[in-house]
């Protein structure tokens, strides 16, 4: 690691003697025991000075920070209320803030004892209390001052200070999916060449002639909606999906062992079935076999993709500012939707969550997503989507407590024509909790065993 003059006030962290020894042990073994090396959530303050960019979104009641590193986000509450659920321990902690003049002061509590402050083995216990102060030094520089209080590990409180610089030539943050990249590199996760970009020797995004989709009746936005200062429907809030079992199949299906029935969420085609090409239907059926369960990216705790993130049985927080709508998924992932009319990123940049741009049509938010990487499944039973998919979503606030969500998917690699799903999103008075996933994923090895046994059997039969 490079030399540095340090960011700690006074130059030294005041460890208790036992803790100084522990820190030295951490340092000695850092190549194998640094939690960040396992792609575990970095904790606060470490996430703030990782060498990856982040973006800040500010409303009167929240500050949301989305990080390029593994789609981590922080949702900091400015509403003056204590946490809704007390005594919860998590990797990133609970953040509550207030303004002192122009300085944002954030108290972070409830962090577990599994994160470090840096890659040099500096550590803390579960008694950690972090106070962050964000002060603008000029239009483009935040002075980030941190006070660390942990009576189990240190002899007194200590401080560090870092400058956070606004990046002017960066119009978006992209993705660094730490765990997914590691598992693709070591072969634990295998990409399917039929859906993955790039498919060698074929154009990036085929524009195959497809039959047109059906026409759908327009949805009416509610009459008594809350609006923001700039006159847009205010979507900010916590939503639970009424997925209708979409996570277990978008089409109508009966209840099976451990899998619930669903009436289906496909509204076009009118018969509720997905217009699969024959190869993709065969693949969909194959993915329900037990040995394929390991291939679902979410079983590996990778991000759900688009539109799946909306109807995983887990909540979503919408944060809306004049220029952006940001979706924060409880399963630690975000989507940033700029509303300034910008174009999509170049075709050869492919992302798990794709590239989304949005605009308002009256009170309806319309979001256009391309640049998907074709690695995601549409649900646990394996409805298919490729990198060629173009997704148009409509968030229609039908009343103050409900958004009707529609997504139209046009994917010429897997389907014969566009199709549309519809799902209600219900607003609730709740707060997001953290889903650390691969940090505690007890299932993946079992799923891998089933896959490996199947492959061994196949090999024997050959």
């Amino acid at each position, binding site marked *: 690691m490079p030399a540095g003059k340090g960011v700690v006030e006074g130059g030294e962290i005041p460890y208790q003697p036992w803790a100084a020894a522990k820190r030295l042990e951490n340092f000695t073994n850092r190549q194998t025991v640094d939690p960040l090396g396992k792609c575990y959530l970095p904790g606060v303050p470490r996430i703030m000075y990782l060498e990856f960019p982040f973006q800040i979104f500010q409303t009167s009641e929240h500050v949301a920070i989305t990080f390029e590193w593994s789609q981590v986000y922080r949702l900091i509450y400015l509403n003056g209320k204590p946490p809704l659920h007390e005594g919860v321990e998590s990797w990133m902690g609970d953040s509550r803030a207030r303004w002192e003049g122009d300085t944002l002061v954030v108290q972070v509590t409830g962090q577990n004892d599994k994160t470090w402050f840096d890659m040099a083995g500096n550590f803390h216990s579960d008694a950690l209390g972090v106070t962050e102060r964000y002060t603008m030094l000029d239009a483009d520089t935040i002075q980030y001052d941190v006070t660390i209080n942990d009576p189990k590990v240190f002899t007194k409180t200590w401080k560090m200070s870092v400058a956070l610089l606004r990046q002017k030539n960066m119009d978006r943050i992209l993705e660094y999916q730490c765990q997914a990249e590691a598992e693709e590199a070591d072969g634990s996760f295998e990409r399917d060449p039929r859906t993955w970009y790039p498919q060698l020797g074929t154009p990036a995004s085929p524009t195959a002639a497809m039959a047109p989709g059906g026409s759908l009746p327009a949805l009416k936005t509610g009459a008594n909606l809350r609006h923001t200062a700039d006159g847009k429907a205010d979507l900010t809030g916590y939503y639970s999906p009424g997925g209708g079992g979409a996570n277990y199949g978008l089409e109508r299906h009966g209840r099976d062992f451990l899998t619930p029935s669903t009436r289906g969420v496909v509204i076009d085609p009118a018969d509720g079935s997905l217009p699969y090409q024959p190869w993709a239907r065969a693949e969909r059926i194959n993915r329900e076999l037990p040995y394929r369960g390991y291939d679902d990216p979410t079983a590996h705790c990778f991000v759900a993709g688009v539109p799946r993130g909306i109807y995983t049985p887990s909540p979503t927080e919408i944060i809306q500012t004049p220029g952006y709508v940001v979706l924060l998924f409880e399963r630690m992932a975000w989507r940033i939707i700029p509303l300034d009319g910008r174009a999509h990123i170049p075709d050869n940049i492919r992302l798990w969550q794709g590239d989304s741009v949005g605009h308002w049509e009256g009170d309806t938010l319309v979001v256009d997503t391309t640049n998907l990487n074709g690695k995601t499944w549409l649900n646990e039973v394996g409805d298919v989507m490729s990198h060629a998919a173009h997704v148009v979503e409509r968030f229609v606030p039908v009343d103050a407590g409900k958004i009707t969500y529609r997504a139209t998917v046009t994917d010429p690699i897997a389907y014969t024509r566009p199709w549309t799903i519809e799902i209600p999103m219900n607003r609730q008075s*709740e707060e997001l909790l953290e889903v650390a996933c691969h940090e505690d994923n007890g299932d993946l090895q079992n799923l891998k065993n089933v896959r490996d046994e199947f492959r061994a059997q196949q090999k024997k039969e050959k």
Partner: protein
Amino acid sequence: MRIRHAGAILVMVTLMAGKVLAHHSFTAEFDEKKPIKLTGKVTEMKFSNPHSWIYIDVETNGKIVNWALETGAANSLIRRGWKRTDLPAGTVLLVDGWQARNGSATANVSSITFTDGRRLFAGSSNEAAPTK
């Protein structure tokens, strides 16, 4: 189990059946043809996401095996008022469920009851699981 939780447990059974978070295919991991019944003492309650796990020591013919029981996500338990300290080690539980396909001491549970017949929160780790 402390007394003040007794009421909460009964309420929880009905709530949990309707909504538990899933993040992987259950049919891929667990075997419909391997229903099991277990009685054992809690060694640990691991309060985690995307699933919580209860570990119990089960004695069969003088041999003790530690079973891993998959239940709902910590977040859904927290939203129903549960804390990580609410299931102390030593509590005896009766478990119905399905064993993992790989034959390991791992199970998806359909019901867990205390020795006095009260049911614990975990209907199943999947909202799909048949209820009895």
